[in-house]
């Protein structure tokens, strides 16, 4: 019954490494997910799990000491990793745009808002300055900035954080991209402003029919905005599914732990059980399952053999031994106060 969605972006087994003084660091190691056309996919995980590096890898905007080692990033069937720098520039800001976590510092302080939005338009649409400025005003209107004619002439320091994030959105959407990557777009903002910005992104997505990659550490944001979710842990995707399944029937112990540490009113929570332990250092990754040191049900095999990201059922992928034929633990386990039967 499920209709086959067209995937605008496919990330397969992405591996991104950084050269550091302490040796090579694999910040992203085997990340796979798909972005269906017109949908929002969330990438969720604790800080340091490699969400930003994943998105920067897609746009090939890594710092000088970082590089993509392996994998492919298929945008409309073409591998972005194989494009020339020039071809990649034509995609950035035009077909794939990005907004960032820090609205206060993401705009250039010495140019006006209008100049900065215009620049994107002039680069990609090859239109005149005057025309670009006119369209910049329209964009500011689109993102709900009052008196846009006045605002285009202002410098970033004259705007609040929420306004600046709206400007960033206007700039990102100026060329009508097919994918918007939003890296924690509301994390640095006040709670009330957060809701407005999320609402704006959702509204524009519907109107402009684009796909969104919503990066966040906040499952609340995922619940509100996403159609699909990739849960990341220590540089890997550990669970990928549609958002309903994720909240109703989470499978990976880490996802369960995350959900359990989130206060919810839709289900009875006996008590909040936090995930014990700490995120492993990228210099010292566990050899088996990366979550094993913190997992309440880890077995001997978990500590020695790394699990693969396997498809289970329809459009669902899990990286956990519990869901494989080789599971050597109990067939009934209790995870964060929840009993579940696993196949074995």
């Amino acid at each position, binding site marked *: 019954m499920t209709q086959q969605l067209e995937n605008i972006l496919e990330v397969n087994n992405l591996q991104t490494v950084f050269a550091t003084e302490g040796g090579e660091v694999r910040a992203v190691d085997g990340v796979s997910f798909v972005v269906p056309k017109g949908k929002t996919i969330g990438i969720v995980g604790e800080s340091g799990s490699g969400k930003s590096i994943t998105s920067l890898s897609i746009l090939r905007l890594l710092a000088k000491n970082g590089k993509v080692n392996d994998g492919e990033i298929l945008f409309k069937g073409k591998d972005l990793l194989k494009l020339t720098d020039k071809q990649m520039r034509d995609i950035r800001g035009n077909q794939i745009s990005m907004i*960032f976590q820090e609205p206060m*510092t993401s705009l*250039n302080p010495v140019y006006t808002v209008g100049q900065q939005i215009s620049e994107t338009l002039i680069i990609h649409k090859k239109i005149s300055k005057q025309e670009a400025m006119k369209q910049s005003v329209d964009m500011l209107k689109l993102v709900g900035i009052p008196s846009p004619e006045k605002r285009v002439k202002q410098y970033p320091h004259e705007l609040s954080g929420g306004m600046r994030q709206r400007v960033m959105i206007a700039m990102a959407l100026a060329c009508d991209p097919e994918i918007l990557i939003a890296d924690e777009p509301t994390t640095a903002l006040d709670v009330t402003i957060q809701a407005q910005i999320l609402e704006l992104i959702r509204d524009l997505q519907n109107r402009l029919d684009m796909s969104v990659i919503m990066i966040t550490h906040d499952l609340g944001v995922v619940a509100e905005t996403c159609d699909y979710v990739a849960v990341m842990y220590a540089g890997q995707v550990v669970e990928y599914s549609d958002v309903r399944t994720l909240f109703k029937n989470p499978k990976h112990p880490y996802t369960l732990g995350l959900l359990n540490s989130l206060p919810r009113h839709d289900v009875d929570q006996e008590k909040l059980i936090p995930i014990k332990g700490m995120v492993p250092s990228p210099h010292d990754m566990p050899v088996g399952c990366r979550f094993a040191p913190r997992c309440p049900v880890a077995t001997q095999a978990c500590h020695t053999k790394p699990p693969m990201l396997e498809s289970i059922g329809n459009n669902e992928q899990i990286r956990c031994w519990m869901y494989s034929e080789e599971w050597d633990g109990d067939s009934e386990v209790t995870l964060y106060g929840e009993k579940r039967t696993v196949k074995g």
Partner: protein
Amino acid sequence: MTKYIIRRLLQTIPVLIGVSILVFSLMFLIPGDPARVMAGEGASEQTIENLREKLGLNDPAYVQYGRFITSAVKGDLGNSVRSGRPVMDEISARFWITVELSIYATILSVFIGLIAGIVSAVRHYTLTDIFIMIIALFGLSMPNFWLGLVLIQWFALGNLPFGMDMPAWLFDIVQMRPSGWGESWRQMVLPVITLGTGGAAIIARMTRSSMLEVIGQDYIRTARAKGVSERLVIYRHALKNALIPVVTVIGLEFGGFLGGAVLTETIFAINGMGRLTIDAIRQRDFPIVQGTVLVISIIFVLVNLLVDISYKFLNKRIDLN
């Protein structure tokens, strides 16, 4: 902004008064009787007494200072003890030579410093960067007078190292003639290099570190995410921000050249303010010494003021971030 300018202008008044007091006291800081020192060895008592009378040295110090400051405000700094000409005339004849030298030296150091700094930052941690920074370190640590003497040895006297021959065109460019008013730019070449080298090194290092800091900023990542080419990321987005602190250094450097060209002018026999000061000290012509020191100090204070104001102006958008 206007308030800031007015405040800074008012702040310079006590500084200028302090400077004038200091300059005035020069006369009393040297050991012995100023009139006797100025008159020179073997001068008769009568000559010394006349000089003392002429300079008003018999009055109490505060009366002398009052006279000094009231005429200074009117542009009268007294007369040279040696030539008898007004100090102001002596200075203005030399002033523009020093200004010219300082302007050329500033242009040279800005030109070389900016290019070297940008290249170094864009290629940081490559051999190019290391090479430029080593050269800059040399430029910074070389004493002016030493560089000047080396340049004279090599180019003016033609004693190139390793027995190399100097091509005629090069000799033509750097040859020195007796200096004076209306010096051709050719005579300025070696002194400008001497004076500007250290400045170029400072600007190169400053530009590099400022560029590196700016290149790491979030808005540079934003520019790249928009599809801006690497060239424009550097020249449109990074440079404009990175130059703000460099402008300050350039201004201060120019001020420093004006006051600090003493050695260079002496080595190359350029008749600028520095040379005038040195000669006056040698001849114990105190009114001239007072005059040059006062003029240089005032210029330095004013250049500083201008630099502060322009920095504030350029930094306005960033400051409030």
